[in-house]
């Protein structure tokens, strides 16, 4: 097990290193002179040259890369080009918000999708299965801005249960923010729901075919024991892994949802950075995103290994 963990950690570090090179190279390749971006169109050649000297833009690329990587690892992520503020504080603040939202989504989607998928799988091809499949698939076909707007229309404007705007204050604690988290979380849940439910359903159907289920039934065990103790234990394994992997996407990929609800997450910060050609900000967000993906993959592997004795005990 420790061998497994060490290998995974080594892979993770390697992944991060390679992405950092790619991120750096891509931002270098983008058209435009950095000094000109910062100082504006009116700046004189002398001022531009001074700034280039100061930022080290005349050094060879690998020197620039080494400096950037070293500073990044020390925690000095530089200042934003557009706001002139230190980047780290902003990104971490947004990361915190994104994590709160992602957590809420998982807390909503997981029980809902698993229940739906298990019910569908246990009742394969019966009416309830068809109903669940049709319902979840028809929701997944709708883009998030449609479902989001419908939810706002109904839950905020008509029923006045939840706020339509989710622009949470900077220092809001999780519980203060919670009412504003529910609507965006619900919207993202609807996207994930069909996917996870289908996966769970397939897992349950696959396990029900296994000979050990017949062994369990022919022991004379009750239906609930067979289902919960035998079938689900194995059927949910792949699903749980997939959910862990999709956590990475939840952290930074919810651009549309964040926009619809005006939620201050990493996704919107990313769009902002691209808009302003704010290279240091873009680099920082991308690195954090990649780290998020890599960690959720690692998490998925560990959860799978922990739940599966065939992996855990070799």
């Amino acid at each position, binding site marked *: 097990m420790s061998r497994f963990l060490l290998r995974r950690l080594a892979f993770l570090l390697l992944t991060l290193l390679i992405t950092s090179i790619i991120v750096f190279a891509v931002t270098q390749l983008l058209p435009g002179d950095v000094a000109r971006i910062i100082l504006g169109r009116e700046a004189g050649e002398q001022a531009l040259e001074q700034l280039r000297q100061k930022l080290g833009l005349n050094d060879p690329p690998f020197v620039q890369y080494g400096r950037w990587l070293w500073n990044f690892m020390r925690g000095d992520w530089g200042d934003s080009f557009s706001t002139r503020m230190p980047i780290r504080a902003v990104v971490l603040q947004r990361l915190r918000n994104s994590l709160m939202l992602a957590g809420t989504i998982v807390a909503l989607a997981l029980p809902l999708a698993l229940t739906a998928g298990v019910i569908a799988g246990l009742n394969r091809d019966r009416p309830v299965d068809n109903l669940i499949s049709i319902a979840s698939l028809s929701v997944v076909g709708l883009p998030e801005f449609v479902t989001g707007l419908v939810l706002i229309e109904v839950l905020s404007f008509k029923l006045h249960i939840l706020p339509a705007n989710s622009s949470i204050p900077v220092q809001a604690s999780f519980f203060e923010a919670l009412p504003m988290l529910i609507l965006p979380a619900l919207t993202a849940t609807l996207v994930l729901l069909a996917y996870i439910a289908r996966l769970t359903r397939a897992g349950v159907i696959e396990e029900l075919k296994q000979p050990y289920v*017949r*062994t369990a039934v*022919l*022991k*004379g065990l*009750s239906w609930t024991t067979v289902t919960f103790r035998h079938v689900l234990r194995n059927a949910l394994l792949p699903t749980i892994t997939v959910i862990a992997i999709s956590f990475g996407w939840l952290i930074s990929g919810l651009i549309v949802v964040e926009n619809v609800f005006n939620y201050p997450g990493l996704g919107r910060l990313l769009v902002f950075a691209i808009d302003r050609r704010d290279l240091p900000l873009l680099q920082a967000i991308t690195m954090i995103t990649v780290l998020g993906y890599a960690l959720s993959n690692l998490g998925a592997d560990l959860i799978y290994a922990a739940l599966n*004795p*065939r992996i855990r005990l070799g």
Partner: protein
Amino acid sequence: MHSEHRNGDTLKIEDLTVSYHTGGTSVQALRSLSLNIRFGETYGIVGESGSGKSTLALAVMGFLPANGAIESGRIIFQGEELRGRSRTAMRALWGMRMALVPQDPLASLNPSLRIGAQVAEVLQQHLGLKGEALRQRVLELLRTVRLSDPERVYASYPHQVSGGQQQRALIAMALSTEPELLVLDEPTTGLDTTTQAAVLDLIRDLMRVRGTAALYVTHNLGVVARVCDRVAVLYAGELVEDGPTNGLYRQPLHPYTRGLLDSVPRLGENKSAVRLRSIQGSIPALDELPGGCIFRPRCSLAIEICKQDPPLNPSGEGRTSRCHRWEEILRGEVSARQKTPDASLAKPHTARDETILGMEEVEVHFHRGLTLREMITAGRPPGVRAVDGVDLQVGRGSTLGLVGESGSGKTTLARAVMGLTPRTAGEMFLLGSELPAGLGQRDKETRTHLQIVIQNPSEALNPYLTIGESLRRPLQTLLGLSRSEADSRVHDLLEAVHLQPEYARRFPVELSGGEKQRVVIARAFTTNPDLLVADEAVSSLDVSVQASILNLLSELQAEHASGMLFISHDLAVVGFLADDIAVIYLGKLMERSPVRTVFDPPYHPYTEALLSAIPLIDPAAEQVEIRLEGEVPAASQIPAGCPFHTRCHRFLGDICVEEKPPWRRNEAGKEIYCHIPLDELERKQSRPFAFDSGMEQRG
């Protein structure tokens, strides 16, 4: 318990018909089947695939698949009608009064629950045991099924113990509540011969002690002979014959039973003396059964009356036969035997001098990656020594049989010969010139000389190519024939394996397993290979088909004068086809002998144990019971000295642990890898098996 039934029938099946519905049509998988299992009786159900034997087992358990239904008839268990009972009502019986021992033990255990917990469940559910009492009872059960380390098995997950241990745990589970009826569905299929023997002993002893009635479903006639009191023979959903095992084996009264018994090579029989009589034709599909006697199209005795449905005739001594001509068979007026194949007996070939394939000290070792600690300390991980120093020769026109249990390295060796898994050390020679280790280093010429037939013909044929296309490819790519030349060769090839020419236009899914294996064999012979490797080539086939494939292989081999490396776990089959036999254990050869000497002492102790473990197709046969201790060690932890010393019943002492044994050779050409001198082995050993002389001889 239930003493009022002590002398009665535990299970009565009356006129049972079971049908399956698929896509709007329905077929009857069992038709009007009746049988009674008495208290304490083990009732064998034998049949080939499609006979309905598994359907019977499931119907008795009340666990038919969703598309299956009992159309008519009754299943009476201890006086109670089971048909029509809901699953909820069955639950009180399942695991408590009737239990199933399934095949494929690994898949039949929940992979993520410990074995102890899975056994405990039954006792919890039905007897309400809890806590320490429950644990003690489970451990006691694990001891009852002769698990040597019950504490460890209790705490293990299924994948951590061997197949034999898994099956014992399942038997413990089934026996835990002392059920009145046990249904055993091929419980030893897939286990090694030596493990199978131990599990069969266990089943037989437990049945005897407890008086449990048992329905034992299997395709293996030897297994039935060893454990069953009575046997019913099923053919395409009908019971064609039943009776006490002894009498039925001694004188079968139905031509199909006769055919089954004749299809299987007996231990010690060889192609030089015996031709196997396979059953002509194949089992009819359930939706196109012939009218009258269903066996008529394949029967050598069929006459006019056979177009009428035969009744199940009582033939005395508790026996029945569904044959119009059973009395003639009984009186010896007609023979129910299938015709002997036209070809004459395989001649012991003479030109053995030319060596086709030679191996010297061949090794195939696998290494896993280094751990962090090994990287730091520069330690080397123990490799898996799958094949560990093998010397062998295959001569022109001769067959070398390689016998071994699972994990012995026999398939790895086959792959090393083919170049699929390159050897890591040692030399191989093909026709005297060096054979490169990897497939990529071999030229087309060399590949043309080497062909392989694998166990599962479905995996060996591309499902999207017609049979004709599959056969044409090697002709065009390896031999460089033109399209039209290749087409005419395909015709000849199909003829050679006794298939109609129109098969060239069919796809693999339209063929039965036996027909597919014929195609694979035809393809292997397209290039007129110098060496054919057959890896368990007949193991997945029904016995009646197996016989015809064995005949075919020896026929074609004689014609082409190819050398053959024939690999199998079945010593009777290898003994039938081979000229020389090599026995392999944990990647090392234990014995190399000409086939005529293999079945007589002196034996390597491992060969001796194998011979005593094979279930013989003769209920009256006498067999010395040598049962190996413990489990086969992992290939990464091969014992030092003689690799067999941890399980050897003739273990000498320190010398076996510390020193590698020498190869010892006698005048008869037997070579044995053992510390015990051959004359001493010969003095100590007797043939561990003997057929009842009353069994009909054949030839």
